[in-house]
């Protein structure tokens, strides 16, 4: 069966520090991969998605970037965090050609 791992679960970082959140998927090949941000009381906002290694699409202008160095690895990064980057970040995958998203457990990021 397919599983998705996302870490860390919580992270407290100072303003101006770098960020690296990692997500890996097991049990499937060539998945579509996604990074979402979930703000309290708001719906999920798609940040990035990837249909293959090295292929990244950005949905919103922001202080973050994403990379996909391997087929089942997706990384969310920032060179310098802002206070407004605080939030709950979710990685997800879907099968190639599939529409439903399957989510990781999320990372609670607090920028102080």
């Amino acid at each position, binding site marked *: 069966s397919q599983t998705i791992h*996302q870490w860390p679960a919580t992270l407290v970082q100072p303003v101006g520090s770098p960020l690296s959140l990692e997500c890996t998927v097991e049990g499937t090949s060539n998945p*579509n991969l*996604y990074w979402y941000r979930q703000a309290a*009381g*708001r*719906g*999920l906002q*798609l940040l990035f*998605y990837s*249909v293959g290694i090295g292929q990244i*699409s950005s*949905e919103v202008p922001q202080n973050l970037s994403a990379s996909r160095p391997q087929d089942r690895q997706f990384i969310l990064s920032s060179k310098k965090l802002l206070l407004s980057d605080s939030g709950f970040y*979710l990685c*997800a995958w*879907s099968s190639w*050609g*599939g*529409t*439903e*998203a*399957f*989510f*990781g*457990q*999320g990372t*609670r990021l607090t920028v102080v």
Partner: protein
Amino acid sequence: GESVGLHLPTLSVQEGDNSIINCAYSNSASDYFIWYKQESGKGPQFIIDIRSNMDKRQGQRVTVLLNKTVKHLSLQIAATQPGDSAVYFCAEGPISGGGADGLTFGKGTHLIIQP
């Protein structure tokens, strides 16, 4: 623009009663709908989905109803249990294999189970 929303932000029900969570959508072109359950501090879990060529689909203790005429989606949970306490949200999008980037998510309804 098109949006997906929920009628009620919080729903409180007695343990053992049935729960009905509602969702309105405005994109008449959407032909695929999903319900997710999200427990506090965790990622959303896929519960059940339905395609636009159906008006009802049943799972284990859950039923999703789709009314395309009024663009309304509902999730019914039978005999609610304490473990059902969570935020439930719907998502809608195309079924055309474009990937989950085509999904639009609602804000969610917080279901609270009273003992």
